[in-house]
């Protein structure tokens, strides 16, 4: 009897240990041959109001239909900080085989595999970039940022025209304020980027890159600093706008989605936002809003246009299938690429350019910047001079501090300290 009890105890203990150890295992099927003899790859994505689950599923279903020997499993990044999510997956050994928005991760050596020449040749040479002399990512789209959306009826009621200069923009803000309305909307809580990043990209990046075209390189070499007159001037003017009451009172207690919703409900007359807003308005056939290019403070005709990149993991066990998937999306069936681009107001980076029917707001968005030079956002520049991972998040928090009244100079000084700290640490 006692012996049976002991055996039962040992068996149960073994089962308990085994069940615990099962959780410690790494991915099993990824990159290997899954059931029914199909090759399986995982595809790391994120979803937004525009790039929905359906957009990705359409891409995956089309590929699987034309490549019945390969299955693609979607891995969805959750939360606001997608880079942190991918790094968590990386640490746990569950990093997807193909990852979108790979540009920041690519700065860490050994994460992505080199892109084969035939795949590189599908893309416009100007959009390809290198890390340590190797091309390890492919450009998935170009996105124009940021412009100012406005409520047409408010502008009409107050006889306002789309401003062409910074002073005119300030007059527009003051006129709206004097009329008892709120000029500008932004987000805050939970979506820290939504507070200052849109304004900074439209005014700060453009001002810095117009004065210092090689700002990233100079920053990395230590011959330039964030803390310069241009940065301080842009942020001081932004803080003045906040102090003058140009921003919606409760903006910092709103998420990005809530802020966009409040803007559409008429709680504020204008909102600085990316091209995804234009795509969203077009998909709703919403004609109540217009868009103008936010006039730069120095009058320069510069627009920020970021490229985003996909990468194939170095640990992917079936790189051929992963690159086959990339070739399919960007070359073999450009209908799925078109759907992806159209959903968020994006532009193709392939040699075989993909176009789509644009709605009125998106068309206006592009017309606004037709004559402008385009530059890449400072903290999102890919390649050798990329900003260290974590800088974006640090700046976003700093924008919130400035919005809430922190000393601009002190904040900008902390950017240089943090930039160097992150650079040294990575």
């Amino acid at each position: 009897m006692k012996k049976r009890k002991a055996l039962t105890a040992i068996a149960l203990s073994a089962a308990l240990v085994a069940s615990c150890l099962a959780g410690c295992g790494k991915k099993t099927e990824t990159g290997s041959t899954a059931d029914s003899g199909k090759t399986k790859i995982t595809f790391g994505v994120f979803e937004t109001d525009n790039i929905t689950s359906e957009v990705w599923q359409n891409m995956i279903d089309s590929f699987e239909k034309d490549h019945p020997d390969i299955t693609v499993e979607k891995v969805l990044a959750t939360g606001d900080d997608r880079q942190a999510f991918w790094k968590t997956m990386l640490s746990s050994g569950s990093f997807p085989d193909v990852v979108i928005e790979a540009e920041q991760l690519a700065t860490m050596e050994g994460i992505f595999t080199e892109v084969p020449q035939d795949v590189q040749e599908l893309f416009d040479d100007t959009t390809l970039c290198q890390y340590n002399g190797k091309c390890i990512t492919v450009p998935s789209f170009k996105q124009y940022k940021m412009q100012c959306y406005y409520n047409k009826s408010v502008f009409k009621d107050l006889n306002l025209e789309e401003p062409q200069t910074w002073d005119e923009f300030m007059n527009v803000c003051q006129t709206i304020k004097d009329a008892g309305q709120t000029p500008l909307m932004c987000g805050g809580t939970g979506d820290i980027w939504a507070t200052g990043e849109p304004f900074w990209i439209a005014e700060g990046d453009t001002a810095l890159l117009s004065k210092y075209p090689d700002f990233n390189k100079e920053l990395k070499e230590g011959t330039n600093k964030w803390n310069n007159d241009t940065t301080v001037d842009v942020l001081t003017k932004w803080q003045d706008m906040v102090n003058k009451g140009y921003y919606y009172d409760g903006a910092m207690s709103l998420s990005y989605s809530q802020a966009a919703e409040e803007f559409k409900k008429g709680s504020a007359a204008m909102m600085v936002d990316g091209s995804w807003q234009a795509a969203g308005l077009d998909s709703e056939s919403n004609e109540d809003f217009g868009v103008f290019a936010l006039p730069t403070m120095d009058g320069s005709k510069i627009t920020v246009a970021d490229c985003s990149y996909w990468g194939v993991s170095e640990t992917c066990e079936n790189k051929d299938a992963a690159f086959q998937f990339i070739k399919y999306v960007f070359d073999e069936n450009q209908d799925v690429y078109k759907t992806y681009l159209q959903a968020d107001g994006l532009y193709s980076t392939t040699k075989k350019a993909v176009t789509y029917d644009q709605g009125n707001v998106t068309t206006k968005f592009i017309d606004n910047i037709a004559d402008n030079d385009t530059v890449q956002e400072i903290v999102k520049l890919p390649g050798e001079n990329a900003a260290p991972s974590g800088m974006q998040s640090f700046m976003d928090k700093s924008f919130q501090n400035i919005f809430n009244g922190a000393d601009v100079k002190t904040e900008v000084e902390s950017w240089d300290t943090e930039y160097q700290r992150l650079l040294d640490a990575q």
Partner: protein
Amino acid sequence: MKKKRMSIGFAAPAFVIYTMLLVIPIMMAFYFSLNKWNGFNAMQFIGIENYINVFRDARLGNAVINTLIISVVVIIFVNVLGLFLAMLVNTASVKSNIFRTIFFIPFVLSTVAISFVWKSILSYNGVLNGMLTTFGQEGLIGNWLGSHGSAIVCIIIVEIWRTLGYHMMLYLAALQTVPHELYEACTVDGGNRWNKFRHVTLPLIVPGMTVSFLMSIINELRMYDVVKIMTDGGPGYDTETIVYNIVSQGFSNSMVGYSSAISVVLFLAIGAISVFIVTKMNQKEVEM
């Protein structure tokens, strides 16, 4: 001998699991903390440099202050209110079960879910400001989650609401171990309600109080999820806690070595505080 072997047999799985999931990770964290490591590429041994940086990091210092503010206020409130509610519930009749359940529900619910609910209540166009508008109190409308100062108060309120029921239950369990005869003896000796509380209840619930204090200290020093969802550490760094900082340094900034050093320091701090509290409370137990 056989009995001893059997005991070892039963204890072994728990020991293996504990070692694998707790002891080894702690030792690994200590090892990582002595290296410069981004979590992926090769480690570079740097000795105690990460520990030196821990004490120089202003942003971490701010996170420590925030954590201490949240911890001190929450610990005081949940223990005082928890004991008060436990005494009320303890004296109530069968109906007390309903109150126990009501007070305990927030602790059972997913922290992520309740954080989202509170976020929607406290956002500018949320339920609270909506109610204030409905009742004509527009002047009281606040930018609760977005203003300097008020965001941390919101976090504290949510944390008290979330954990109060748990601490009430700890105190209730302790109160139910107090023999009724002692209250009767106190009554016979002419003791009033305060005397009963001070000389009967309090000395006998010290073990429960120790557990409650310890649990609240450990919980609050490790606070992350409510902050992450409700404010993401904002506005700016106003609600960043130590654990939020550890996660940011490790995953956003790719500084796994440095974040491990902060984790080790936090681990030692919690350990030291726990030992201090247990020792002090044991002394109190003897004194009382």
